[in-house]
């Protein structure tokens, strides 16, 4: 039987994969994908907790919707900045944005 634990493990795995992607990838777009994975793992957490532990209100699901919307806004700002970078160095691909070292 699939229970809360399964969802939590799935979310934790997704979060870790996303974090790894965000830290290890050099390509800015891949980093964004990693961050999206992290945010979606959070959504899984919210919806799973909502469904299994606190089904009386849909608060967790509402939170997930907000996370999706805000993430979209964040990513479009990020993509716009990637475009600006790309325009400045017109001859390089996005995969060569290796100035991002931290």
């Amino acid at each position: 039987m699939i229970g809360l634990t399964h969802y939590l493990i799935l979310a934790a795995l997704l979060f870790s994969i996303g974090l790894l992607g965000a830290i290890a990838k050099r390509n800015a777009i891949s980093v964004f994908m990693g961050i999206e994975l992290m945010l979606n793992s959070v959504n899984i957490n919210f919806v799973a907790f909502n469904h299994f532990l606190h089904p009386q209100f849909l608060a967790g699901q509402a939170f997930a919707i907000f996370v999706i919307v805000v993430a979209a806004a964040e990513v479009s700002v990020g993509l716009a900045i990637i475009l600006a970078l790309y325009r400045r160095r017109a001859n390089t691909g996005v995969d060569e944005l290796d100035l991002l070292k931290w």
Partner: protein
Amino acid sequence: MAKEFGTLFLFLAGGFVLSLVIVFVNWLLRPRNPSSAKARTYECGLETEGPTWVQFKISYYLYALIFVVFDVEVVFLYPWASSFKSAGLVPFVEMAIFIGVLALGIWFAWKKGAFEWN
């Protein structure tokens, strides 16, 4: 539970086998006369013009970015619409303000020339 998933598995396996059978029967029955025209790539029935890995115009991305933002904002309309009748006046006014702000955003993008094609 196991029984339900078993049925699902049977369907999956059946679908997989069926598609293999179709490919195999086609291979068995088809006439074999290859020609150079058949080996060429084609695009919507036409021959391709120039290299296929071209850069898209940057304006596409502007459209896409604006589209994504407005597309996702619509998510909020669904829960509102599904409880529209019971919700009353206050949520209606709130949603009107929300859409008003979005409309202001569109107007801003328009005035800034984000929808111009040049």
